[in-house]
């Protein structure tokens, strides 16, 4: 991180206030029976950064993603994007407000062409309304969208697959398509749930450069990841979850030395032996 990065002055402690947060969550709680899947006092995501969310399996990372994007409802708590609250907002509305997510298991629309996968993500197309589709007049929007989709597909090296069914893509290509598709919506915040899972090492590098590319083009990226090396390489800020709580946050180099994090990942005995 550069010395003039706005996060340099931020103390690496859970729930810390940040200078320019795009997404803020307060006292967010979600239980499944007796299990506190998510129990967060405060979490702020700094604008125009890559924030990675790490933690052992069952830490509540995906549940947090679901809550923030409206795919699940919290038992209590409040969270907002910019100044607009997202409490009680349906998932599709959250997406329209500029926070788009992807899924851990890739969700390509298999029996739609790659191009249609892209076009379906475009917002504000009159032809998507029932009457609008019958009356016509959406063809100009469609052409403009096709052009934008073509550019994005080129950026993600998928333009040669545009007319193929998305179901015929390889696993890594589907990850790329899902990311490109999310960008079709011009989101402000991109939430990537394990974008690297099941992707071969060669493609991982390309995916990582796409993620940093998103930040450099003015988006905020939050992503879930297991691999600490990957996290160290591209994150501006790391949030560590364990048992539903944020146990640490800070710049990646600080997090890598944090004993709590080492405990959470490797167990406390291991940490003692190593220390």
């Amino acid at each position, binding site marked *: 991180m550069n010395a003039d990065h706005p996060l340099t002055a931020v103390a690496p402690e859970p729930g810390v206030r940040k200078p320019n947060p795009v997404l803020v969550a307060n006292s967010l709680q979600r239980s499944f029976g007796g299990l506190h899947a998510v129990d967060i006092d405060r979490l702020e995501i700094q604008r125009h950064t890559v924030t990675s969310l790490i933690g052992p399996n069952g830490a509540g990372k995906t549940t947090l993603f679901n809550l923030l*994007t409206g*795919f699940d409802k919290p038992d209590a708590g409040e969270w907002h994007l910019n100044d607009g609250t997202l409490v009680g907002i*349906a*998932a*599709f*509305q959250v*997406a*329209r407000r500029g926070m*788009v*997510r*992807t*899924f851990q298991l890739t*969700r*390509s*629309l*298999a*029996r*739609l062409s790659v191009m*249609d*996968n892209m*076009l*379906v*993500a475009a*917002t504000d*197309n009159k*032809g*998507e*309304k*029932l009457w*609008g*589709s*019958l009356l016509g007049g*959406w063809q100009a929007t*469609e052409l403009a969208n096709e052009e934008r989709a073509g550019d994005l597909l080129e950026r993600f090296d998928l333009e040669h697959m545009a007319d193929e*069914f998305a*179901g*015929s893509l390889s696993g890594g290509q589907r990850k790329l398509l899902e990311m490109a*598709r*999310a960008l*079709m*919506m011009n989101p402000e915040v991109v939430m990537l749930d394990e974008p690297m899972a099941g992707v071969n090492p060669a493609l991982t590098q390309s995916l990582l450069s796409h993620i940093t590319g998103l930040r450099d083009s003015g988006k905020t990226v939050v992503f879930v990841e297991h691999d600490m090396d990957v996290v160290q390489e591209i994150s501006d800020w790391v949030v560590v979850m364990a048992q539903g709580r944020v146990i640490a946050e800070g710049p990646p180099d600080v997090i890598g030395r944090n004993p709590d994090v080492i405990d959470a990942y490797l167990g406390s005995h291991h940490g003692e032996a190593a220390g």
Partner: protein
Amino acid sequence: MDWASVLIDGILATIGPITAAYAISAIGLNLQFGYAGLLNFGHVAFMLVGAYGTAITVDLGGPLWLGIIVGILAAALLGLLLGLPTLRLRADYLAITTIAAAEVIRLLVRSSWAQPLTNGVFGIQGFADSFFSLNPFPTARLYGIGSLVVTGRKLWVMLVGWALVALLTLLIRRLIKSPWGRVLKAIREDEDATTSLGKNVFAYKLQALMIGGAIAGIAGILLAVEQQNVTPDAYLPKITFILYVIVILGGAGTILGPIVGAVTFQFLFFTIDALMVNAQANIGWVGDILTPAAAGQVKLVFVGIGMMLLMVFRPQGILGDKEEALIDER
């Protein structure tokens, strides 16, 4: 064996208004099942509601045109009522609700409680006179070539029926080739992914259920008008499953699939029927072992075997895309 008459009987039944009505109903089901992925197992109820909406309106003294509008709107309303509580839930809830609702509606209509309105098991007859008074063809005159002839009455219903098939197919084509149709297909593939792209999945599913239902209502009205008769027991659950066979046979999620499916199904069904009747009359040993009652069952066995062969050798249906059908298996 009189092969020519077997074929003629088969063709006559295939081009008739009943096939047109099945094609229309299948167009509605194809929108729901083939494009939106909705498991509507009570499709026959939409036909019943359409037919009864029309018959009751005329029976109460209304004009037929009003009855037709009432029938179509009632079928769409049924889609709204069934969709509101179920479409937010997992797909199987719609399936369970629709299959149950279809039987509940049929039993309600035939109950003595509803008799003042529906005339119970006897149904309502003779409500479509004003439709036949518009018939430009002399009712009793025969039209056609050779022995392939239909009466002027049947010709009139046929023309209206197939014109409706064409119109509705064009409507569906316009809807499906639009961005609206693309969202519908996206929902069929993955609801969560479509939601994550900012689409109100619930609203789209409700629209598809209502439009498909209204189209089934039109099919029910056409059948009722053709027969000048509605009775509750014509709307058994098996009609829904015949319509599924038609949609899958033609190719679910293809624009012309419902028409091809309906024509193929009806042709096989009635040709086998004619074949059995002919064999009973003309081949001694067939007549000996096969009573007319048993023949009806054997006919269904043959139709079933035909469907199984189709699923084995052409799972995507007649018009379906092989490549597309295989994608799910990856």
